[in-house]
Protein backbone atom coordinates (compact mmCIF):
# COMPACT_ATOMS: atom_id res chain seq x y z
CA UNK A 1 0.00 0.00 0.00
CA UNK A 2 1.49 3.38 -0.96
CA UNK A 3 1.63 6.40 1.34
CA UNK A 4 2.43 10.08 0.84
CA UNK A 5 6.16 10.78 0.65
CA UNK A 6 6.38 13.65 3.15
CA UNK A 7 10.04 14.32 2.44
CA UNK A 8 9.08 15.36 -1.07
CA UNK A 9 5.62 16.74 -0.47
CA UNK A 10 6.48 19.12 2.37
CA UNK A 11 9.27 21.08 0.62
CA UNK A 12 7.07 21.36 -2.46
CA UNK A 13 4.21 22.57 -0.26
CA UNK A 14 6.41 25.20 1.38
CA UNK A 15 7.63 26.47 -1.99
CA UNK A 16 4.06 26.59 -3.29
CA UNK A 17 3.04 28.50 -0.17
CA UNK A 18 5.75 31.09 -0.70
CA UNK A 19 4.61 31.77 -4.25
CA UNK A 20 0.88 31.32 -3.70
CA UNK A 21 0.05 35.06 -3.23
CA UNK A 22 1.64 35.72 -6.64
CA UNK A 23 -0.34 32.86 -8.11
CA UNK A 24 -3.60 34.46 -6.96
CA UNK A 25 -2.52 37.83 -8.40
CA UNK A 26 -2.34 36.37 -11.93
CA UNK A 27 -5.05 37.41 -14.41
CA UNK A 28 -8.07 35.28 -13.59
CA UNK A 29 -6.30 34.22 -10.42
CA UNK A 30 -9.50 34.11 -8.40
CA UNK A 31 -10.63 31.10 -10.43
CA UNK A 32 -7.37 29.16 -10.18
CA UNK A 33 -7.34 26.00 -8.07
CA UNK A 34 -6.33 25.71 -4.45
CA UNK A 35 -2.68 24.64 -4.61
CA UNK A 36 -2.63 22.84 -1.26
CA UNK A 37 -5.75 20.83 -2.08
CA UNK A 38 -4.29 19.86 -5.41
CA UNK A 39 -1.06 18.76 -3.78
CA UNK A 40 -2.97 16.77 -1.18
CA UNK A 41 -5.05 14.96 -3.78
CA UNK A 42 -1.94 14.15 -5.77
CA UNK A 43 0.06 13.04 -2.75
CA UNK A 44 -2.51 10.79 -1.08
CA UNK A 45 -3.03 7.73 -3.24
CA UNK A 46 -6.30 6.02 -4.13
CA UNK A 47 -7.35 3.72 -2.55
CA UNK A 48 -6.26 5.35 0.69
CA UNK A 49 -3.60 3.55 2.74
CA UNK A 50 -4.67 1.40 5.69
CA UNK A 51 -3.11 3.85 8.07
CA UNK A 52 -4.65 7.31 7.82
CA UNK A 53 -1.88 8.76 9.96
CA UNK A 54 0.20 10.11 7.08
CA UNK A 55 -2.72 11.61 5.14
CA UNK A 56 -4.04 13.27 8.30
CA UNK A 57 -0.59 14.64 9.11
CA UNK A 58 -0.47 16.04 5.62
CA UNK A 59 -3.93 17.56 5.99
CA UNK A 60 -2.82 19.26 9.19
CA UNK A 61 0.46 20.62 7.79
CA UNK A 62 -1.04 21.79 4.50
CA UNK A 63 -3.85 23.50 6.42
CA UNK A 64 -1.31 25.39 8.50
CA UNK A 65 0.71 26.39 5.45
CA UNK A 66 -2.43 27.66 3.75
CA UNK A 67 -3.36 29.60 6.87
CA UNK A 68 0.05 31.33 6.88
CA UNK A 69 -0.80 33.20 3.68
CA UNK A 70 -4.55 33.51 4.10
CA UNK A 71 -6.93 35.12 6.53
CA UNK A 72 -9.16 32.06 6.37
CA UNK A 73 -9.13 29.97 9.52
CA UNK A 74 -7.03 26.77 9.57
CA UNK A 75 -10.17 24.88 10.63
CA UNK A 76 -11.69 25.63 7.24
CA UNK A 77 -8.61 24.22 5.51
CA UNK A 78 -8.43 21.12 7.74
CA UNK A 79 -12.14 20.40 7.34
CA UNK A 80 -12.04 21.04 3.60
CA UNK A 81 -8.97 18.86 3.03
CA UNK A 82 -10.28 16.06 5.23
CA UNK A 83 -13.67 16.11 3.52
CA UNK A 84 -11.96 16.17 0.10
CA UNK A 85 -10.08 12.96 0.90
CA UNK A 86 -13.25 11.26 2.10
CA UNK A 87 -15.29 12.35 -0.93
CA UNK A 88 -12.58 11.21 -3.31
CA UNK A 89 -12.17 7.89 -1.51
CA UNK A 90 -15.91 7.23 -1.61
CA UNK A 91 -16.23 8.12 -5.30
CA UNK A 92 -13.07 6.43 -6.53
CA UNK A 93 -14.28 3.11 -5.09
CA UNK A 94 -17.40 3.36 -7.23
CA UNK A 95 -16.17 5.03 -10.41
CA UNK A 96 -13.66 3.67 -12.88
CA UNK A 97 -10.27 5.36 -12.84
CA UNK A 98 -9.69 4.41 -16.47
CA UNK A 99 -12.02 7.06 -17.85
CA UNK A 100 -10.89 10.69 -17.89
CA UNK A 101 -14.40 12.05 -17.37
CA UNK A 102 -14.93 9.95 -14.23
CA UNK A 103 -11.56 10.97 -12.81
CA UNK A 104 -12.48 14.59 -13.53
CA UNK A 105 -15.82 14.11 -11.79
CA UNK A 106 -14.08 12.61 -8.77
CA UNK A 107 -11.60 15.49 -8.53
CA UNK A 108 -14.35 18.05 -9.09
CA UNK A 109 -16.49 16.60 -6.30
CA UNK A 110 -13.50 16.35 -3.97
CA UNK A 111 -12.87 20.08 -4.36
CA UNK A 112 -16.45 21.05 -3.55
CA UNK A 113 -16.28 20.86 0.30
CA UNK A 114 -13.26 23.16 0.53
CA UNK A 115 -14.66 25.64 -1.98
CA UNK A 116 -18.01 25.71 -0.19
CA UNK A 117 -16.29 26.26 3.16
CA UNK A 118 -14.11 28.98 1.60
CA UNK A 119 -17.21 30.68 0.26
CA UNK A 120 -18.83 30.57 3.69
CA UNK A 121 -15.71 31.98 5.33
CA UNK A 122 -15.37 34.67 2.65
CA UNK A 123 -18.99 35.64 3.16
CA UNK A 124 -18.40 35.99 6.89
CA UNK A 125 -15.32 38.13 6.26
CA UNK A 126 -17.18 40.42 3.88
CA UNK A 127 -15.41 39.46 0.63
CA UNK A 128 -17.77 37.10 -1.14
CA UNK A 129 -16.23 34.60 -3.54
CA UNK A 130 -18.02 34.76 -6.91
CA UNK A 131 -19.92 31.55 -7.83
CA UNK A 132 -18.10 31.41 -11.18
CA UNK A 133 -14.72 31.55 -9.45
CA UNK A 134 -15.82 28.81 -7.06
CA UNK A 135 -16.94 26.67 -9.99
CA UNK A 136 -13.68 27.29 -11.83
CA UNK A 137 -11.66 26.29 -8.77
CA UNK A 138 -13.49 22.97 -8.59
CA UNK A 139 -13.14 22.44 -12.32
CA UNK A 140 -9.42 23.15 -12.30
CA UNK A 141 -8.87 20.69 -9.48
CA UNK A 142 -10.93 18.09 -11.35
CA UNK A 143 -8.98 18.55 -14.59
CA UNK A 144 -5.55 18.52 -12.96
CA UNK A 145 -6.38 15.52 -10.78
CA UNK A 146 -7.73 13.69 -13.85
CA UNK A 147 -4.56 14.43 -15.78
CA UNK A 148 -2.05 13.60 -13.06
CA UNK A 149 -3.68 10.54 -11.52
CA UNK A 150 -3.92 8.38 -14.62
CA UNK A 151 -3.62 4.67 -13.79
CA UNK A 152 -0.91 4.47 -16.47
CA UNK A 153 1.34 6.56 -14.21
CA UNK A 154 2.68 3.67 -12.16
CA UNK A 155 5.27 5.67 -10.23
CA UNK A 156 4.54 8.94 -8.59
CA UNK A 157 6.90 11.52 -7.12
CA UNK A 158 4.65 12.26 -4.16
CA UNK A 159 3.97 8.67 -3.04
CA UNK A 160 6.03 5.68 -2.13
CA UNK A 161 5.23 1.95 -2.11
CA UNK A 162 3.04 -0.03 -4.46
CA UNK A 163 -0.63 0.61 -5.10
Amino acid at each position, binding site marked *: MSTPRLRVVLPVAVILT*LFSPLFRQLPGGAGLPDLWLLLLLLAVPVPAPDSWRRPMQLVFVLGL*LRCSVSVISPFVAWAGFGAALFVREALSRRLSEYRFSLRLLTGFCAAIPLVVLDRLAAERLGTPLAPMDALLRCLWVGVLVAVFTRPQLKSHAFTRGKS
Partner: protein
Amino acid sequence: MFLLPGAERYRRVMVCSGIVVVLLVQAVVPWQPLEDRCNLFFGPLLRPLTAVSATVVEFVAPTPEPVSTSQALESSVLVAMERRLGKPQPLPGMEWLEVPVLAVEAAVGRITLAAGEDFHLGVGQIVAYGNQFLGRVSRVQLHQATVELVTAPNVRTGVLLTDSAGATTRGISLGRGRAGPAVLPWLQSSDQITAGLVLTWRPRPLDPPHLGAAHLFLGVTRQEGEVQRGNAAWVIEGPLPAGAEGRLYIAASAVGERLVAEPLQVRTLAQRLLLDDAVLGAGWCAVAASAAIAPTVLLDGGQVGGWCSSWRGNWGWFRRVAPAQWQQRAVALETTTGAVLELAKWQNVTPALPLFTRGGEGVPRGLWLGNSDAAALVPAAQFVVIVQQERVAGAD
Protein backbone atom coordinates in the same frame (compact mmCIF):
# COMPACT_ATOMS: atom_id res chain seq x y z
CA MET B 1 -8.57 -5.79 22.33
CA PHE B 2 -8.37 -8.06 19.28
CA LEU B 3 -9.86 -6.69 16.09
CA LEU B 4 -9.94 -8.18 12.66
CA PRO B 5 -7.93 -6.24 10.05
CA GLY B 6 -11.18 -5.19 8.35
CA ALA B 7 -12.68 -4.06 11.62
CA GLU B 8 -9.49 -2.22 12.50
CA ARG B 9 -9.60 -0.43 9.17
CA TYR B 10 -13.21 0.58 9.72
CA ARG B 11 -12.36 1.76 13.24
CA ARG B 12 -9.68 4.03 11.83
CA VAL B 13 -12.01 5.28 9.15
CA MET B 14 -14.62 6.04 11.80
CA VAL B 15 -12.10 7.92 13.96
CA CYS B 16 -10.93 9.99 10.99
CA SER B 17 -14.54 10.63 9.94
CA GLY B 18 -15.32 11.82 13.44
CA ILE B 19 -12.39 14.22 13.39
CA VAL B 20 -13.41 15.57 9.99
CA VAL B 21 -17.02 16.02 11.12
CA VAL B 22 -15.88 17.97 14.19
CA LEU B 23 -13.64 20.13 11.99
CA LEU B 24 -16.52 20.71 9.58
CA VAL B 25 -18.75 21.84 12.41
CA GLN B 26 -16.06 24.22 13.64
CA ALA B 27 -15.51 25.52 10.09
CA VAL B 28 -19.22 26.13 9.46
CA VAL B 29 -20.16 27.43 12.91
CA PRO B 30 -16.90 28.83 14.30
CA TRP B 31 -16.55 28.71 18.06
CA GLN B 32 -14.56 31.88 18.65
CA PRO B 33 -12.63 30.86 21.79
CA LEU B 34 -11.24 27.84 19.94
CA GLU B 35 -10.37 29.97 16.90
CA ASP B 36 -8.61 32.50 19.11
CA ARG B 37 -6.60 29.86 20.94
CA CYS B 38 -5.62 28.22 17.67
CA ASN B 39 -4.58 31.58 16.19
CA LEU B 40 -2.62 32.44 19.31
CA PHE B 41 -0.81 29.10 19.30
CA PHE B 42 -0.01 28.70 15.61
CA GLY B 43 0.20 32.40 14.63
CA PRO B 44 3.73 33.11 15.92
CA LEU B 45 4.94 29.83 14.38
CA LEU B 46 3.59 30.79 10.97
CA ARG B 47 4.83 34.37 10.96
CA PRO B 48 8.33 33.56 9.58
CA LEU B 49 6.77 31.77 6.62
CA THR B 50 4.45 34.72 5.98
CA ALA B 51 7.42 37.09 6.17
CA VAL B 52 9.43 34.99 3.69
CA SER B 53 6.45 34.79 1.37
CA ALA B 54 6.10 38.58 1.59
CA THR B 55 9.79 38.98 0.67
CA VAL B 56 9.38 36.65 -2.31
CA VAL B 57 6.27 38.49 -3.50
CA GLU B 58 7.95 41.88 -3.04
CA PHE B 59 10.99 40.66 -4.98
CA VAL B 60 8.98 39.26 -7.91
CA ALA B 61 6.25 41.91 -8.06
CA PRO B 62 7.21 45.03 -6.10
CA THR B 63 4.35 47.08 -4.72
CA PRO B 64 4.25 50.60 -6.20
CA GLU B 65 4.52 53.44 -3.72
CA PRO B 66 1.03 54.52 -2.69
CA VAL B 67 -0.17 57.84 -4.11
CA SER B 68 -2.64 59.78 -2.02
CA THR B 69 -5.33 61.47 -4.08
CA SER B 70 -7.14 63.32 -1.34
CA GLN B 71 -5.85 65.95 0.98
CA ALA B 72 -4.99 64.58 4.39
CA LEU B 73 -7.19 65.63 7.26
CA GLU B 74 -6.46 65.55 10.92
CA SER B 75 -8.30 62.75 12.66
CA SER B 76 -9.27 65.18 15.38
CA VAL B 77 -11.34 67.35 12.99
CA LEU B 78 -14.54 65.40 13.60
CA VAL B 79 -13.96 65.34 17.33
CA ALA B 80 -13.35 69.09 17.36
CA MET B 81 -16.52 69.68 15.35
CA GLU B 82 -18.56 67.44 17.64
CA ARG B 83 -17.27 69.29 20.65
CA ARG B 84 -18.10 72.63 19.08
CA LEU B 85 -21.63 71.55 18.15
CA GLY B 86 -22.32 69.23 21.03
CA LYS B 87 -21.32 71.09 24.17
CA PRO B 88 -24.41 72.69 25.70
CA GLN B 89 -24.53 76.23 27.04
CA PRO B 90 -22.70 76.67 30.34
CA LEU B 91 -24.92 76.76 33.40
CA PRO B 92 -24.14 78.39 36.71
CA GLY B 93 -22.98 75.87 39.30
CA MET B 94 -23.04 73.04 36.76
CA GLU B 95 -20.47 71.41 34.53
CA TRP B 96 -20.97 69.39 31.35
CA LEU B 97 -18.96 66.17 31.41
CA GLU B 98 -17.92 64.91 28.00
CA VAL B 99 -18.33 61.16 27.62
CA PRO B 100 -17.65 59.17 24.45
CA VAL B 101 -20.31 56.78 23.22
CA LEU B 102 -19.61 53.07 23.13
CA ALA B 103 -22.76 51.77 21.45
CA VAL B 104 -26.00 53.24 20.16
CA GLU B 105 -29.25 51.28 20.09
CA ALA B 106 -31.52 54.01 18.82
CA ALA B 107 -34.40 51.65 18.07
CA VAL B 108 -34.79 50.69 21.72
CA GLY B 109 -33.77 54.13 22.99
CA ARG B 110 -30.55 53.13 24.67
CA ILE B 111 -26.98 54.46 24.47
CA THR B 112 -24.00 52.90 26.20
CA LEU B 113 -21.30 55.29 27.35
CA ALA B 114 -17.61 54.52 27.64
CA ALA B 115 -17.37 55.74 31.24
CA GLY B 116 -19.05 54.83 34.48
CA GLU B 117 -18.20 54.90 38.15
CA ASP B 118 -14.58 55.54 37.17
CA PHE B 119 -15.76 58.92 35.85
CA HIS B 120 -18.10 59.57 38.80
CA LEU B 121 -21.29 59.22 36.77
CA GLY B 122 -24.52 58.66 38.67
CA VAL B 123 -28.01 57.39 37.95
CA GLY B 124 -30.46 60.14 37.06
CA GLN B 125 -27.99 62.63 35.57
CA ILE B 126 -29.35 64.30 32.46
CA VAL B 127 -27.71 63.79 29.08
CA ALA B 128 -27.65 66.34 26.27
CA TYR B 129 -26.04 67.08 22.94
CA GLY B 130 -25.95 70.67 21.78
CA ASN B 131 -29.15 72.23 23.07
CA GLN B 132 -31.08 68.95 22.79
CA PHE B 133 -32.14 66.87 25.75
CA LEU B 134 -31.58 63.17 25.07
CA GLY B 135 -32.35 61.28 28.27
CA ARG B 136 -30.99 60.27 31.64
CA VAL B 137 -28.31 57.94 32.93
CA SER B 138 -30.20 54.83 34.01
CA ARG B 139 -27.44 52.41 35.00
CA VAL B 140 -23.82 52.88 36.00
CA GLN B 141 -21.16 50.18 36.03
CA LEU B 142 -17.46 50.42 36.69
CA HIS B 143 -16.36 51.41 33.17
CA GLN B 144 -19.62 52.07 31.37
CA ALA B 145 -23.03 53.58 31.84
CA THR B 146 -26.37 53.27 30.10
CA VAL B 147 -28.48 56.20 28.98
CA GLU B 148 -32.22 55.77 28.50
CA LEU B 149 -33.36 58.10 25.79
CA VAL B 150 -36.70 59.89 25.75
CA THR B 151 -37.86 57.23 23.27
CA ALA B 152 -36.98 54.24 25.49
CA PRO B 153 -39.98 52.07 26.42
CA ASN B 154 -42.02 53.41 29.35
CA VAL B 155 -39.68 56.33 30.02
CA ARG B 156 -41.66 59.35 31.20
CA THR B 157 -40.23 62.80 30.55
CA GLY B 158 -41.64 66.16 31.56
CA VAL B 159 -42.18 68.47 28.59
CA LEU B 160 -43.02 72.09 28.14
CA LEU B 161 -44.97 72.96 25.01
CA THR B 162 -44.84 76.47 23.65
CA ASP B 163 -47.64 77.36 21.26
CA SER B 164 -47.57 79.90 18.46
CA ALA B 165 -48.86 82.65 20.77
CA GLY B 166 -45.99 82.03 23.20
CA ALA B 167 -48.13 80.40 25.88
CA THR B 168 -46.67 77.34 27.58
CA THR B 169 -48.37 74.08 28.49
CA ARG B 170 -46.97 71.33 30.66
CA GLY B 171 -47.13 67.71 29.65
CA ILE B 172 -45.53 64.30 29.95
CA SER B 173 -44.10 62.20 27.17
CA LEU B 174 -44.02 58.41 27.16
CA GLY B 175 -41.35 56.46 25.28
CA ARG B 176 -42.42 53.54 23.11
CA GLY B 177 -39.11 51.99 22.00
CA ARG B 178 -39.42 50.14 18.70
CA ALA B 179 -43.09 51.12 18.37
CA GLY B 180 -42.13 54.65 17.33
CA PRO B 181 -41.34 58.12 18.71
CA ALA B 182 -42.40 59.11 22.20
CA VAL B 183 -46.07 60.05 22.54
CA LEU B 184 -47.68 62.84 24.54
CA PRO B 185 -50.40 60.99 26.49
CA TRP B 186 -50.95 63.81 28.93
CA LEU B 187 -51.04 67.54 28.30
CA GLN B 188 -52.31 70.15 30.73
CA SER B 189 -54.27 71.76 27.91
CA SER B 190 -54.50 70.21 24.47
CA ASP B 191 -56.77 72.87 22.96
CA GLN B 192 -54.12 74.92 21.19
CA ILE B 193 -51.85 72.08 20.12
CA THR B 194 -50.91 71.96 16.44
CA ALA B 195 -48.24 70.20 14.45
CA GLY B 196 -44.75 71.69 14.50
CA LEU B 197 -44.86 73.23 17.98
CA VAL B 198 -41.59 73.29 19.89
CA LEU B 199 -41.23 71.05 22.94
CA THR B 200 -38.62 71.69 25.59
CA TRP B 201 -37.53 69.57 28.49
CA ARG B 202 -39.07 70.21 31.90
CA PRO B 203 -36.97 69.27 34.94
CA ARG B 204 -38.19 67.19 37.87
CA PRO B 205 -38.57 68.87 41.27
CA LEU B 206 -35.34 67.26 42.57
CA ASP B 207 -33.22 68.20 39.56
CA PRO B 208 -30.69 71.01 40.07
CA PRO B 209 -32.64 74.27 39.67
CA HIS B 210 -30.32 75.75 37.05
CA LEU B 211 -31.09 72.96 34.60
CA GLY B 212 -34.54 74.40 33.97
CA ALA B 213 -32.93 77.57 32.69
CA ALA B 214 -31.14 75.64 29.96
CA HIS B 215 -34.40 75.25 27.95
CA LEU B 216 -33.19 72.08 26.36
CA PHE B 217 -34.93 71.24 23.11
CA LEU B 218 -36.84 67.93 22.89
CA GLY B 219 -38.43 68.02 19.46
CA VAL B 220 -41.49 69.24 17.66
CA THR B 221 -45.06 67.94 17.74
CA ARG B 222 -46.44 65.71 15.03
CA GLN B 223 -49.77 63.95 14.82
CA GLU B 224 -49.81 60.22 14.24
CA GLY B 225 -52.85 58.13 13.25
CA GLU B 226 -56.24 59.40 12.12
CA VAL B 227 -58.62 61.59 14.13
CA GLN B 228 -61.72 60.12 12.42
CA ARG B 229 -60.76 56.64 13.48
CA GLY B 230 -60.04 57.74 17.00
CA ASN B 231 -56.44 56.54 17.02
CA ALA B 232 -54.74 59.90 16.63
CA ALA B 233 -51.89 60.76 19.00
CA TRP B 234 -49.40 63.57 19.34
CA VAL B 235 -45.81 62.39 19.15
CA ILE B 236 -42.44 64.07 19.58
CA GLU B 237 -40.39 64.35 16.41
CA GLY B 238 -36.80 64.69 17.61
CA PRO B 239 -34.21 62.59 15.79
CA LEU B 240 -30.94 61.70 17.46
CA PRO B 241 -28.22 64.06 16.14
CA ALA B 242 -25.49 62.23 14.20
CA GLY B 243 -22.85 63.86 16.41
CA ALA B 244 -24.50 62.34 19.48
CA GLU B 245 -23.28 58.94 18.35
CA GLY B 246 -19.77 60.11 19.12
CA ARG B 247 -19.94 61.92 22.43
CA LEU B 248 -22.56 63.11 24.86
CA TYR B 249 -22.60 65.72 27.60
CA ILE B 250 -23.77 64.94 31.11
CA ALA B 251 -24.79 67.61 33.56
CA ALA B 252 -23.01 67.35 36.90
CA SER B 253 -23.01 69.62 39.90
CA ALA B 254 -19.99 67.84 41.42
CA VAL B 255 -17.13 66.67 39.23
CA GLY B 256 -13.89 64.72 39.55
CA GLU B 257 -10.46 65.63 38.23
CA ARG B 258 -11.31 65.18 34.57
CA LEU B 259 -14.14 66.61 32.51
CA VAL B 260 -13.48 64.49 29.43
CA ALA B 261 -13.59 60.70 29.62
CA GLU B 262 -11.58 59.83 26.54
CA PRO B 263 -11.06 56.08 26.09
CA LEU B 264 -7.52 54.81 26.12
CA GLN B 265 -5.87 54.27 22.75
CA VAL B 266 -2.72 52.22 22.33
CA ARG B 267 -0.65 52.78 19.21
CA THR B 268 2.25 50.71 18.09
CA LEU B 269 4.47 50.53 15.05
CA ALA B 270 3.79 47.76 12.61
CA GLN B 271 5.15 46.37 9.42
CA ARG B 272 3.41 45.32 6.25
CA LEU B 273 3.84 41.67 5.30
CA LEU B 274 1.56 40.61 2.46
CA LEU B 275 -0.75 42.78 0.40
CA ASP B 276 -2.88 39.94 -0.95
CA ASP B 277 -4.54 36.88 0.45
CA ALA B 278 -3.51 33.64 -1.28
CA VAL B 279 -7.08 32.31 -1.16
CA LEU B 280 -9.33 35.36 -1.30
CA GLY B 281 -7.13 37.59 -3.46
CA ALA B 282 -6.84 41.36 -3.20
CA GLY B 283 -8.26 43.59 -0.49
CA TRP B 284 -6.29 42.15 2.41
CA CYS B 285 -3.11 43.07 4.20
CA ALA B 286 -1.05 40.94 6.56
CA VAL B 287 0.56 43.10 9.23
CA ALA B 288 3.15 42.24 11.85
CA ALA B 289 3.44 44.20 15.06
CA SER B 290 6.21 44.13 17.60
CA ALA B 291 3.85 44.24 20.55
CA ALA B 292 1.47 41.39 21.20
CA ILE B 293 -1.71 43.42 21.22
CA ALA B 294 -5.05 42.85 19.58
CA PRO B 295 -5.45 45.90 17.35
CA THR B 296 -8.62 47.07 15.71
CA VAL B 297 -7.61 49.43 12.91
CA LEU B 298 -4.58 50.16 10.81
CA LEU B 299 -3.39 53.74 10.43
CA ASP B 300 -0.96 55.01 7.85
CA GLY B 301 -0.14 58.68 7.60
CA GLY B 302 -3.09 59.55 9.78
CA GLN B 303 -5.48 57.72 7.48
CA VAL B 304 -7.25 54.49 8.36
CA GLY B 305 -6.24 51.70 6.01
CA GLY B 306 -8.50 48.91 7.20
CA TRP B 307 -9.87 46.99 10.13
CA CYS B 308 -8.53 43.87 11.75
CA SER B 309 -10.27 40.65 10.76
CA SER B 310 -8.03 38.09 12.38
CA TRP B 311 -5.20 38.52 14.86
CA ARG B 312 -2.71 35.71 15.36
CA GLY B 313 -0.53 36.56 18.30
CA ASN B 314 1.95 39.05 16.84
CA TRP B 315 0.60 39.41 13.33
CA GLY B 316 -2.76 39.41 11.65
CA TRP B 317 -4.94 40.21 8.70
CA PHE B 318 -6.55 43.54 7.98
CA ARG B 319 -9.36 44.11 5.53
CA ARG B 320 -8.45 46.92 3.13
CA VAL B 321 -11.49 48.70 1.77
CA ALA B 322 -12.26 52.01 0.11
CA PRO B 323 -13.58 54.64 2.58
CA ALA B 324 -17.09 54.41 1.11
CA GLN B 325 -17.18 50.68 1.85
CA TRP B 326 -17.13 51.37 5.56
CA GLN B 327 -20.84 52.07 5.01
CA GLN B 328 -22.65 52.25 8.37
CA ARG B 329 -19.35 52.35 10.23
CA ALA B 330 -18.46 55.75 8.74
CA VAL B 331 -19.79 59.26 9.16
CA ALA B 332 -19.13 62.22 6.89
CA LEU B 333 -18.28 65.73 7.92
CA GLU B 334 -19.86 68.54 5.92
CA THR B 335 -16.90 70.90 6.15
CA THR B 336 -18.83 74.05 5.25
CA THR B 337 -21.69 73.69 7.75
CA GLY B 338 -19.92 71.41 10.21
CA ALA B 339 -22.79 68.90 10.14
CA VAL B 340 -22.05 65.25 10.85
CA LEU B 341 -23.85 63.08 8.29
CA GLU B 342 -24.86 59.42 8.41
CA LEU B 343 -24.61 56.91 5.56
CA ALA B 344 -27.95 57.78 3.93
CA LYS B 345 -26.96 61.43 3.72
CA TRP B 346 -23.38 61.10 2.51
CA GLN B 347 -23.64 58.12 0.18
CA ASN B 348 -24.52 59.84 -3.09
CA VAL B 349 -23.34 63.36 -2.33
CA THR B 350 -21.07 65.21 -4.76
CA PRO B 351 -18.48 66.55 -4.30
CA ALA B 352 -17.09 63.76 -2.15
CA LEU B 353 -17.08 64.35 1.58
CA PRO B 354 -14.37 63.41 4.07
CA LEU B 355 -15.30 60.29 5.99
CA PHE B 356 -14.44 59.38 9.55
CA THR B 357 -14.88 56.24 11.61
CA ARG B 358 -18.19 56.13 13.40
CA GLY B 359 -16.71 54.40 16.43
CA GLY B 360 -17.77 51.34 18.40
CA GLU B 361 -16.69 47.68 18.24
CA GLY B 362 -13.25 48.69 19.45
CA VAL B 363 -12.71 51.26 16.68
CA PRO B 364 -12.13 54.77 18.00
CA ARG B 365 -14.46 57.44 16.67
CA GLY B 366 -13.27 60.22 14.44
CA LEU B 367 -10.33 58.59 12.67
CA TRP B 368 -9.96 59.87 9.13
CA LEU B 369 -10.88 57.35 6.42
CA GLY B 370 -10.39 59.49 3.31
CA ASN B 371 -12.83 61.05 0.88
CA SER B 372 -15.92 59.07 -0.02
CA ASP B 373 -14.77 58.64 -3.64
CA ALA B 374 -11.23 57.53 -2.77
CA ALA B 375 -9.83 54.07 -3.43
CA ALA B 376 -8.63 51.67 -0.73
CA LEU B 377 -5.42 52.76 0.94
CA VAL B 378 -2.26 50.80 0.19
CA PRO B 379 -0.24 51.01 3.39
CA ALA B 380 3.46 51.74 3.16
CA ALA B 381 5.94 48.97 3.97
CA GLN B 382 6.91 50.58 7.26
CA PHE B 383 5.50 53.09 9.74
CA VAL B 384 2.10 51.55 9.76
CA VAL B 385 0.55 52.28 13.10
CA ILE B 386 -2.02 50.09 14.71
CA VAL B 387 -4.55 51.64 17.03
CA GLN B 388 -6.30 49.85 19.77
CA GLN B 389 -9.12 51.23 21.82
CA GLU B 390 -9.56 49.83 25.26
CA ARG B 391 -12.39 47.33 25.01
CA VAL B 392 -14.41 48.86 27.77
CA ALA B 393 -17.39 46.60 27.20
CA GLY B 394 -15.47 43.58 28.35
CA ALA B 395 -14.09 45.24 31.44
CA ASP B 396 -17.25 45.19 33.54
